[in-house]
């Protein structure tokens, strides 16, 4: 089974954590991304995630392999939700086990940062006001409306951190 996966049902971190257990590991670090009720000052009612899964799994696997090679951790995994999510639900889980805590923290941070930048997953926010928008796409789609047209880069990552 791939260590980078998608799911349409709620994520259960306890079960995932057990898969990383290893007698040689003294440290485990995990990151959970939750659905927040606001974004850039707007009240969010619910979220919708969509992924280009064939490529996303390949790119996600590459990120996990990079984290293992770079930080020398023992195991790394990531599960991302797709579909409709309510406030407080778990959108993404990253788990890493390693001989020592330092590498586990670094690898966990690396994986979530890279996933947000590189993996073809999209998020649509539905606001309390009734309208909705694709994060990172809508404002950029109308650069003329902005006073200063920032140069668009290929990566094009705004900061939309959890």
């Amino acid at each position: 089974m791939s260590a980078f996966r998608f799911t349409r049902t709620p994520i259960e971190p306890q079960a995932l954590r057990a898969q990383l257990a290893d007698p040689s590991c003294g440290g485990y670090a995990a990151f959970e991304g939750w659905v927040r009720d606001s974004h850039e000052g707007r009240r969010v009612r619910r979220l919708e995630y969509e992924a280009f899964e064939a490529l996303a799994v390949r790119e996600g696997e590459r990120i996990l392999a990079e984290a293992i090679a770079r930080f020398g951790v023992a195991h790394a995994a990531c599960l991302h939700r797709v579909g409709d999510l309510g406030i407080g639900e778990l959108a993404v889980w990253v788990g890493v086990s390693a001989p020592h805590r330092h590498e586990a923290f670094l690898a966990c941070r690396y994986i979530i940062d890279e996933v947000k930048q590189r993996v073809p997953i999209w998020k649509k926010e539905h606001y309390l006001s009734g309208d909705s928008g694709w994060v990172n796409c809508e404002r950029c789609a109308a650069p003329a409306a902005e006073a200063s047209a920032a140069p668009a880069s290929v990566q094009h990552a705004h900061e939309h951190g959890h």
Partner: protein
Amino acid sequence: MAGTPDRAHASAPPLYGLVLAGGRSTRMGRDKATLSYAHGAPQLERAMALLARHVQRAYVSVRAEQSAEAVRARFPQIVDALDDIGPIAGLLAAQAQHPEAAWLVLACDLPLLDEATLAHLLRARAPERTATAYRSSHDGLPEPLCAIYEPRSREPLSAYVAAGKQCPRKFLAGADTLLLDEPNPRALDNVNTPTEYGSANDTLIRESAVQAKHLTVQYYALLREQAGRRQEALQSCAPTPRELYAELAARYPFSLAPEMLRVAVNAEFADWSTPLKDGDAVVFIPPVAGG
């Protein structure tokens, strides 16, 4: 696979093929045998595939130190015995190994070489002459590196090299060579420099653009909503994803400029200038927002 021999050639010596990949690619600065053009495969692989249809056996000619290189290692090899005498070393080594055969010799730097040019050479082959070759559309001299050398060429060729000469063009000009006119005057343009590479590649992209390709396009997120569909099958002459996106943007109210998108072909990230092939599946990737 060997083609059906013409009846006139029933008693002709067997035809083997040799792709010359022993060059040093000095002017190109990169190995010409492993360069890929708009047709996708490394040039050596493409030349071997073109050749294989017409000959009983096909070999790649290499210098000893090149034999482990990954693309060359895929094919049966004949290693040069003499160094620093240019392409003629490859032919001499092949003739030494199989003196009974005629050799269809191809350079590996002919990206515009087409099936029609090879087929015409094969049909016109004159086994009773020393060689069959094309007359260059540029200078009227024989083109030595897309030519058939009959077994009878072996002794004069060895003597020619023994006399300190190494120009295969002059050898053919002085031998009993049947010279043909090229059906496609650019087919034998060889590519030695990055500039020539760019020009040959542009020609191939233009040619592929003439033919409509069957493509599938999948849409995600904002593009899915603006296209009003998840995917579609279409025919397009777009040579690369760049023109394909422009074509689709004229049909759908896409608000995202191409500079904000990435592109994937067959479920792998690709460059905007990747040549599109029949059957490709293309996805334009809006700015991502996972996590």
